[in-house]
């Protein structure tokens, strides 16, 4: 679900911090515990390990702007992803990674290969079953407090990746579900602070997944609603091939 963020940031042209309610004498669970609780709350390690691909479809709306479209994502183990958002009046925006190269392209802006922090974030997000593999992706996870998110007490966990900027995730103390996260997205256009809310968790097979994502960035807000999630669908390997105009941007040696 988080994969949608980087792509849509190219559309966004722009949060009040919740107050810190950490009781001075309250012991906080370690970040590791909270992340493992999330895996359990959403189905457990065994359920995650049964799946090797995911196809999700849904809709996109730029709130209050009348801009709507469809969203489709394909993911496959261990680290491949292809996502497309097709917006009326704008056209298609695609985003993908073959596990080594992360890219995006659109009718509006043409093709682009992600580099630096942006590439690192894209490869992290392409990691299939990311919740299971956080130990390989982050060098530290630290619980820094408890904050209210929509009147619910949430653990605030700061995750510092091996490469790139830290992000902050908020987990509901009762349900252990991830309900909000905040991060800074890097791209050649600049750095954009992004805040996202996850909700409408539903059971798809053995896993509980969020079906609603609201994201605010640069004063704009959009909502992605997921209608269907299918596990272990056969996805042709070519789905994750680099488009020709993206491959044309690579140094010749890299395309061999």
């Amino acid at each position, binding site marked *: 679900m988080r994969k949608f963020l980087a792509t849509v940031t190219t559309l966004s042209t722009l949060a009040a911090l919740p107050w810190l309610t950490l009781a001075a004498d309250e012991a906080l669970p370690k970040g590791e515990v909270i992340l493992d609780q999330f895996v359990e709350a959403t189905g457990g390690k065994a359920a995650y390990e049964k799946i090797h691909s995911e196809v999700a479809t849904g809709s996109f709306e730029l709130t209050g702007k009348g801009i709507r479209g469809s969203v489709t994502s394909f993911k496959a183990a261990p680290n491949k992803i292809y996502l497309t958002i097709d917006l*009326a*009046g704008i*056209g298609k925006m695609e985003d993908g990674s073959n596990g080594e190269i992360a890219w995006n392209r659109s*009718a*509006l*802006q043409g093709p682009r290969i992600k580099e630096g922090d942006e590439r690192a974030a894209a490869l992290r997000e392409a990691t299939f079953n990311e919740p299971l593999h956080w130990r390989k992706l982050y060098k530290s996870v630290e619980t820094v407090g408890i904050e209210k998110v929509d009147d619910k007490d949430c653990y605030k966990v700061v995750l510092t990746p091996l490469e790139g900027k830290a992000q902050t995730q908020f987990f509901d103390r009762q349900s252990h579900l991830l309900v909000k996260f905040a991060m800074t997205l890097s791209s050649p*256009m600049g750095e954009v*602070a992004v805040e996202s809310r996850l909700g409408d968790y539903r059971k798809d097979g053995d896993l509980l997944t969020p079906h609603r994502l609201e994201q605010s960035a640069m*004063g704009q807000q959009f909502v992605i609603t997921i209608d269907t999630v299918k596990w272990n669908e056969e996805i042709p390997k070519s789905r994750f091939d680099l488009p020709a105009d993206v491959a044309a*941007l690579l140094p010749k040696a890299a395309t061999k």
Partner: protein
Amino acid sequence: MAAAGSLAGAEPTLTAQQRRLNLDSFEFVWTTVRDQYWDPKLGGLNWQAVREEFLPAMQNAETMSQARQVLERMIGRLGQSHFAIIPGFVYEDLGAKRDGEEGGAGVTGIDTRVIGGRILVTQVDDGSPAAAQGVRPGWIIVRIEGREMAPAIAKVAEAYQKSTQRELMLHHAMQARMSGRVGGTRRIEFLDGADKVVEKNIRLMMPPGELAIFGLLPPTPVWFHARKLPSGIQYVAFNLFLDPARLMTAFGDAVASTGENSGFIIDLRGNPGGLGIMATGMAGWFIDKPNQQLGTMQTRQSTLKFIVNPRLPAYRGPVAMLVDGTSASTSEIFAGGLQALGRARIFGSQTAGAALPSLIDQLPNGDAFQHANANYISEGGRTLEGAGVTPDLEVIPTREALLAGRDPVLDAAVKWIGAQK
């Protein structure tokens, strides 16, 4: 912008209600700048102190001209020429308030520019009712619906005397006068090529182009023309940066069909802009190196670089862009950026200096407040807002050339491309 007070003659003293409305207008303008100006520090200006300095003058203003001058002096402290107070009577001439049929979607097919104080017909759309009636480029518009145009044009011209948006506003004013209900007519009096008075009743047609739907905008006609000039040069023009799914494809096809050294001309005259990101997308067909940018936009929330993604193989031949005072917003971002990158040569006249969507809010006292909530710096460090793109070669159309069926700006671009081969 000129002090609007100079437009007024002997003015009546303000009533108590008008004074209240002027104070409300003062509050609106001051608050809008405080809350929306792109630089939250207002360039180091103590905005509260500015309020305390000018509020007494507003309270004591005896006439509307004096009240306007207070607001103009206050926003003048920002040092941003695109911030303006537009007198109510000028606002109406810009087409914001329309009487009768004016303001409908119907158009005559005539495009105009005010050159040398005269309203010149610069283009007549092929197949339009105006073309069918024999209207020709180079004719001069004298009256519309019996109303002499010179005084209305003079008012707008004086109000925008010092603004780069003068030509844009004059164009808006003329288009508003010539628009109306589709199927209705406009009675227009011209001076033809022989300076003979000619009156035409011109039926108003649907504007050319395909209706594009983008978000909450009303369906908007968007057209794109591409043709090969006799010299083999590719010429493209489009009226808006909108409908990207269609326009980007058409633009890419035009580039692909252009021989490497044939030359490519992009005509942005009369193009008021649209989706800014389309400028970077189009620039990608002319740039073959990564990490090039057209410029930088700064708002209160962020700084965004207008990065160009190369679309390989990029077109490497000569690129000319045609602009004038009606080229605004995304047109300026596109032209100014490619000029700064050394990738295009610009022909025509200074652009509108309205790179960002300028908001115009009507004030409680009937005047209007024009302001922008972002800043845009073109690659190379040049501020476009309130300044515009300066052509590499200034070319102003003349009546004689238009009557002779020539387009001096296009001719200059063709000549330059010919010299590059």
